């Protein structure tokens, strides 16, 4: 592959050499469409995804929501640019008729500056995404700093969840209750097929694999009732494999866990 | 759409061109087959590394020793060598040597298939216990599939050599089957190597 294509003779200015190519292009109307699109998309990106994702019940989920908002905002100019050119090409450059139009358009065979700028910009955006993602991924050691996390054993089986509290005298329960502001570590496994343990409002999701134990941790910071759903197709009643998690105060949790039956093992 | 009849304005395609196409196609087919074999090798090593709940080795601990696998691979290599000897013969126009080489190679492949069948028929461990047993069986079994396919190609080459279809100038089919034959030998060695790692 040679470079000859990008520097084909067509690249040389065909018209009077005094006017640079970009000045002859309809920059102003495309910029106008771009600005309008940005104005429409920015509020959408700011509010709609985060609103749809609902109120977070953990710092982790708030991190996810701000990530979604940040990525949406970062992609607004990208989408607006592409769509602005697209929309303008429909309006401004269209040709109707039943015969092929004459080949009067400038035969552009690439433009090194544009391509390099495009590549650099997309690389920078990519780098931004990566760094942001790693930064949000990292701050899980809050569990370590805040002392011993509460251990909860989560077991999936078709089509129900069961929970065990090994730190609290092996208490078992068929619903999940957690103390507020206390780091929790889930040890997740399955008795039959793959399930996926998903606490929607806390941004916790990890597969329950038969024969393996997977880990997830979170610190719930809001009292209330939140949704647990299975996120991996697990057979007949997959749709109904859902329950709730109740986040309560530390005292309430202590008395609740006392009242639970002990595992007989 | 109607069928137009066009007189052929081009002569027979150039031998060299056809051979080049066949060669690329056979190499691509080998690449596809290699992706399959490597998936099985990956299966073997992945399950061995995971050793889920200590279930790699069957419960009574009985496994197949590596020796038989190397013997089987050795026979496959020998047959590839015999075939290659015949192929080099036809390159110099010696049809008799091609017939002898490919027949010997075919017999060796059939013998190898018999050995592989005997090994699979007399496994010391049950098929339903332990990921080792499963991973071993599928690798050895696929080698058997390879041998059956190779035997079919070998029968074709022997038969056509007998009919005198090949010459020094035109023996691209011999070459193509030869590429496959070499790959089967390589794959047999890979299988023997893989199944040499038994314990975790």
């Amino acid at each position: 592959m040679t470079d000859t294509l990008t520097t084909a003779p067509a690249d040389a200015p065909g018209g009077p050499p005094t006017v640079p190519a970009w000045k002859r292009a309809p920059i102003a109307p495309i910029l106008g469409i771009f600005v309008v699109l940005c104005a429409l998309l920015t509020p959408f990106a700011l509010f709609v995804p985060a609103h749809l994702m609902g109120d977070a019940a953990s710092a982790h989920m708030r991190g996810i929501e701000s990530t979604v908002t940040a990525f949406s905002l970062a992609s607004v100019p990208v989408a607006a640019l592409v769509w602005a050119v697209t929309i303008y090409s429909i309006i401004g450059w269209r040709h109707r008729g039943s015969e092929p139009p004459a080949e009067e358009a400038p035969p552009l065979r690439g433009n090194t500056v544009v391509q390099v700028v495009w590549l650099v910009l997309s690389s920078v955006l990519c780098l931004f995404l990566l760094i942001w993602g790693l930064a949000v991924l990292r701050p899980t050691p809050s569990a370590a700093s805040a002392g011993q996390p509460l251990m909860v054993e989560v077991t999936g089986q078709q089509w129900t969840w069961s929970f065990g509290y090994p730190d609290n005298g092996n208490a078992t329960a068929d619903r999940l209750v957690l103390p507020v502001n206390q780091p929790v570590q889930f040890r997740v496994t399955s008795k039959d097929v793959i399930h996926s343990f998903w606490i929607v409002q806390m941004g916790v999701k990890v597969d329950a694999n038969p024969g393996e134990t997977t880990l997830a941790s979170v610190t719930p910071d809001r009292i209330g009732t939140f949704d647990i759903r299975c996120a991996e197709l697990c057979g007949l009643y997959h749709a109904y494999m859902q329950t709730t998690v109740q986040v309560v105060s530390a005292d309430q949790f202590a008395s609740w866990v006392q009242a639970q039956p002990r595992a007989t093992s | 759409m109607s069928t137009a009849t066009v007189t052929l304005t081009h002569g027979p395609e150039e031998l060299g061109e056809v051979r080049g196409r066949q060669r690329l196609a056979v190499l691509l087919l080998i690449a596809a087959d290699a992706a399959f074999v490597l998936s099985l090798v990956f299966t073997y090593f992945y399950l061995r590394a995971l050793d889920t709940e200590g279930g790699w080795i069957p419960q009574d601990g009985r496994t197949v020793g590596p020796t038989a696998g190397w013997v089987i691979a050795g026979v496959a290599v020998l047959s590839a060598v015999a075939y290659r000897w015949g192929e080099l013969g036809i390159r110099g126009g010696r049809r008799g040597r091609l017939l002898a080489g490919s027949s010997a190679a075919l017999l060796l492949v059939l013998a190898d298939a018999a050995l592989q069948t005997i090994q699979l028929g007399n496994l010391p461990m049950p098929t339903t216990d332990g990921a080792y047993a499963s991973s071993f069986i599928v690798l050895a079994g696929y080698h058997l599939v390879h041998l059956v396919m190779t035997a079919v190609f070998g029968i074709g080459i022997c038969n056509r050599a007998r009919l005198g279809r090949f010459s020094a100038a035109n023996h691209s089919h011999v070459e193509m089957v030869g590429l496959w034959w070499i790959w089967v030998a390589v794959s047999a060695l890979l299988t023997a190597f893989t199944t040499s790692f038994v314990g975790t």
Partner: protein
Amino acid sequence: MVDTAVAETAIGREPRRRVPRLNVLTGVVCGLILAGAGWGVSSWLLSAGDYGADRVVSITMVCWAVGFLVGVGALAGPIRWLLGRDLSVADEHVLAGKDQGVGRYFRFTTDHKVVGVQYLVLSMTLFGVGGLLAMLIRTQLIRPGARFVSPQTYNTIVGMHGIIMIIGTIIMVSGPFGNFILPIMIGARDMAFPRLNALSFWLICAAVPVLLATFFFGGIPTGWSVYAPLSDQAPAGMDCFLITIIIFAISSGIAGVNITTTAVKMRARGMTWTRTPIFVFGTVSSVALGVIAFPMFMAAMVLEGLNRTTGTVFYDAAHGGSAWLYAHLFWLMGHPEVYVILLPAFAAVLELTPVFARKPLFSFLGAVTGIAGIIGLSMFVWAHHMFISGWAPALDGPFMLTTELISIPTGLLILVLLGTLWRGTVWMRLPVMATFAMLWNFIIGGITGIYLSDVPVDQAMHGSMFVTAHFHFTLMGGALTGFAGALAYWFPKMTGRMLDERLGMIGFWIIQIGFNVTFLGMFAVGLAGQPRRVADYPSLFATGNLVSSIGAYIIGSGALIYLYAVVHSWRHGRRAPGNPWGAKTLEWQVPTPVPLENFTVLPVVTSDFYGYGEGGSAAPTPAPRRIAAPVPSGAAATTQEGGTA
């Protein structure tokens, strides 16, 4: 595989009886007979025990496929090779369907143009079935608590919709256009291996009834990804599914080898890589990727089949297996497969945009780099489907990086499209609508893909309707839209008639509007936390699902209009001239209908095919200057070729 000297020896024996032509009916009869025999013998010998039912079903299905292929005449060539009684040149012409009328479309015909049309009809049939299943899914989900079908049936429908659409989209561009158009585009008389070409098509025909039989053997409860160990529990329908995939993997492997060889080895004289149309690059990279990717899928299915019929334990954690093994093998194929689907369609749009913008492709090198970058990266991103499986959390970061890197070559392809439109004279015909729709849809699909590549966001979105909406935006909004454009673009060449522009436009844009309504609604419920593949949902998600279902019906009605336009135009459309779009690639320079041998005189290429506006403003002539008669010495051609040939 014509062996020239062999053909010469065979000519000596003529005249001989022409090869008998079997057809699809003999195939079905022979398949049913062998399937019946296989069923009888296997139920007599093997039906006892835990694995009996699965063994019987598997053997019956394999017997059907083999019988069908024998009956349709697919094995005649190899058997005669074995016997040393090769087909003569006259036999090959008969096999190519010479002078055989419509009947050749129902036979094992080796002419690449027949195979292309067969593929087109097959993929549109699959879209019809898959689309109908999609309508059933959306009807079930139209409101919470619906009981339109049982959860068992629903799960089967979801899985079958998935796999039928996957197969349909994999073959939709590289099948019809890769077979019909690509050889003409590169100046070849046929594919490199015409019999393999027909075999790849008839293998899929053998597989489709097996796939549909899934419904009658208890269905599949697993979705199209058939995750183990759920697939171990599945009824015998799963065996049908596994056999389908194995046959399909063989078929696409053969097709991939054939198309790749054709494009690499059979380009016209003077068609250097820099003069090769971009569609060839897209299709070849896609099918070549499939050659490596699908065997891994096949391996996953073979292992599952062994689990079900012989009691091996590959995915059974209780006996030392692992469900992660399946996920690895599946996604090692699964992510490249996405690009196998997307790239030919994207390349078709890249091919047709310069024609309608009347400008050269903006940065051919950029487009090739973009395609190559996507192909290269696609092998190293599979684990982003396993971020939350827990198999190796330490590797989340690297896989996040590789996944996000894919946005760079993809962005390059978008830039090429925009640059090609830039200051063009955009001729508003039906094919170019795909460019606009794709630029809209694919931006949405790409951006939402970036969310999912981010590990923390994936923890919230994985397994939700958000994922479903995302990949529909790429595969349907991107790839299927590209197919609609490619179909409109090459329809005149393939059928000899123009596609009805008015109906086509109406159908196309109704599909696009319905599509956006459906999947924007699905994004909303996905963000709110609705898992995918559920037969029912809490009333919290009612509005979004209602919107989605309404959108789906809009798609359905648009698709019916587009389908009607296609069928009607095929039979009664206006006769198409040889080159209705004024395009410069070689397939438009041969007459319509294309003669059996494509070219009476093979062309010599002296420049690339995107020289719009570079030879003055004259409209292209029916016989453009770039195609010269073969020059004996090659001197005229080589002056411009330089050393690149």
